[in-house]
């Protein structure tokens, strides 16, 4: 046998028994989240500088009130984006569910029952998305553009041109008073509870692992017994239900609903999720990141509104933040690649027939792995 070295060139650290050191995965994740914390603190400081009593409970209440529904919709969308799909129908489902609840209530249904009906509608709409994307394998961006239109259209059919406003006063209070004992709006509290649940599920349960694996490596996930299609279907149904919940809260908070409730909000939700560090390519993202992103967006909006900055400029800032949040990681890599190419000369293309998957994320790829021999 040819004399080849028995082992690889020595690695950084030799095998050292049971290495149970704390997880650098947190480290890697925390880099983005740390950035968000910095941005948040900066925003808060900015707000306080502008108006000395910025950091009081009323501000918190209003931020939560404004952002609550969007925040609730961001949670399931985060999971969907982690599986490398997208759901653009979120705001339309918000509108549809609100419309259904309002219509049924105006026809005499008790408000509780009407809410349940709205949630069922959410589940059905989500199931439609789920069947089309997970079972039929249709591209989620196109499908959810279709259901975005469909749901909005159904809301229009349900309500026509009417605006329903007669909701029981005791429940529309959620738009005015905080949860007793706290300074937070009802939607905020619901969001926080849900965020904790989602956080636990995503980071510490089988389901969460399955979701991440589905987004990172669907084929490998299948080979490990994960039902990728089931996972995606379930997430779309979940999204539908939670958007319905958001719709209920939105309607009751405003004490009114018309067919165009929440139009255009989907873009806010997507922006928040992406800014929260969830990768559009799938497989990455933390709940903390999304929560921070929600708070930043809400606070920023509040500060700018108090400064009487027009909503237009706010839009520019949101768009700018979103752009920066994707350009930075990708752009850095692109610049690196450009520099590498200028250094080494003509580009060494990968010959076809070699099964190297195009990887979206660059881990520490030394570029040369032991050749798969024939």
């Amino acid at each position: 046998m040819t004399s080849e070295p028995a082992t690889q060139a020595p690695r950084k650290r030799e095998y050292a028994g049971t290495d149970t050191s704390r997880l650098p995965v947190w480290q890697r994740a925390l880099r983005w989240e740390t950035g968000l914390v910095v941005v948040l603190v900066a925003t808060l400081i900015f707000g306080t500088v502008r108006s000395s009593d910025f950091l009081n409970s009323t501000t918190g209440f209003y931020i939560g009130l404004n952002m609550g529904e969007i925040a609730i919709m961001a949670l399931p969308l985060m999971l969907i984006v982690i599986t490398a799909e997208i759901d653009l129908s979120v705001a339309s489902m918000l509108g549809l569910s609100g419309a259904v609840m309002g219509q049924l209530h105006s026809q005499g249904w008790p408000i509780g029952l009407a809410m349940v009906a709205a949630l069922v509608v959410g589940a059905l709409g989500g199931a439609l998305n789920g069947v089309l994307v997970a079972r039929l394998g249709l591209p989620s961006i196109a499908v959810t553009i279709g259901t975005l239109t469909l749901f909005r259209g159904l809301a229009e059919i349900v309500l026509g041109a009417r605006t329903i406003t007669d909701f029981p006063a005791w429940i529309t209070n959620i738009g005015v008073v905080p949860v007793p004992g706290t300074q937070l709006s009802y939607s905020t509290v619901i969001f926080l509870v849900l965020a904790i649940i989602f956080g636990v599920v995503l980071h510490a349960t089988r389901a969460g692992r399955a979701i991440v694996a589905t987004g990172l490596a669907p084929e490998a996930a299948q080979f490990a017994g994960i039902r990728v299609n089931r996972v995606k279907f379930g997430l779309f149904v979940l999204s539908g239900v939670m958007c319905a919940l958001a719709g209920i809260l939105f309607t009751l908070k405003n004490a009114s609903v018309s067919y165009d409730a929440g139009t255009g909000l989907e873009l806010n939700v997507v922006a928040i999720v992406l800014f929260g560090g969830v990768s559009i390519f799938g497989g990455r993202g933390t709940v903390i990141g999304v929560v921070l992103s929600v708070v930043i967006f809400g606070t920023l909006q509040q500060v700018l509104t108090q400064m009487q900055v027009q909503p237009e400029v706010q839009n520019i800032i949101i768009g700018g933040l979103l752009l920066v949040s994707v350009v930075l990681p990708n752009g850095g890599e692109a610049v690196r690649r450009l520099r590498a190419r200028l250094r080494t000369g003509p580009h060494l293309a990968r010959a076809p027939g070699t099964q190297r998957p195009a990887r979206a994320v660059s881990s520490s790829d030394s570029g040369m792995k032991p050749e798969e021999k024939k």
Partner: protein
Amino acid sequence: MTTATSALGTRFARGGALLRAREVGIGVVLLLVFGVTTLHNHNFATANSVQQLLSGAALIAMLGVGETLVIVTRNVDLSVGSIVGLSAYVVGDLFKDHPGTPVILGFVVGIAIGAVIGAINGFVTAALRVPSLVVTLAMLYIIRGIDGLIVNGVIITSSNIPNAFIAIGFRTIAGIPWLAIIAFAVVVIVAYAMRSFRSGRDLYAIGSNPEAAALAGVPVARRVFTAFVISGSLAGLAGALFLALHAEVDVTGGTGYELLVVAAVVVGGVAIFGGSGTVVGAALGALLLNTINQALVASRVSAFWNEAIAGALLLLAIAFDRWLSLRVARGLRSAEGAHRDL
């Protein structure tokens, strides 16, 4: 002889033809819808009504052309609606503040605005390798914001716009509205370029198999960049025409157009995954959607049903495309399988 393929496969296997089965199909559906509606409501077929149909679809058709170029390369441009709004307003503002401005300059300015924004989209997508969904989404926000700032609550009305300009919005030649003619010209020119120039075929190659395209020497980044610039420019042009058509514009100009355009393009047979579809199909898709819209109105179907039907249609179109490609693949595979057992 060609290897054994099922009849279905052969029928759809011919590529490069001037009109694929899909475009013909849309045309047929279009005529059907038109015919059926006219039976219900004879007014649907009057000259006026048809002119309205054509004008109404013209803008979306134009946007569809640009969007097709982008989608063919496996990208998407969600900023077109906001470009329309911004362009329309800036052109209107130009006329308002400088009343003597020649009409042609208005168009130039509109196109230029679109081109600049398209260039930014293209640069970030192609050079910085950022997914176009995110880039154009962010630009949508930013442009809306800029638009809002510029508008500042001031509405441009017809009194601000030179008559010659507004005329483009409603004048006809031989009964065909100017808008439709312009849209038609755009479609024809771009369709021809896509078919007959290497750079056009490059776009299809990029969408069909990006790795193979790079290997074949196609300048991928440059082409994608150009696609976005064209998409932006056409949106800018559409913005100027928007102003001409509506003779007024405020901060909400063009809102929601991006989703409409994507729907039209998909219905028109452009695969959302890239690599196939034509601008002719996209334009027909726009025309079909608009016709259905108006047909519902003409048939006294409550206007409230429009959006739901549009949404359902889009879903049907996507599902149908998928079903079709699966059928063709299965047909070809089993034919090949039978062949293989020799």
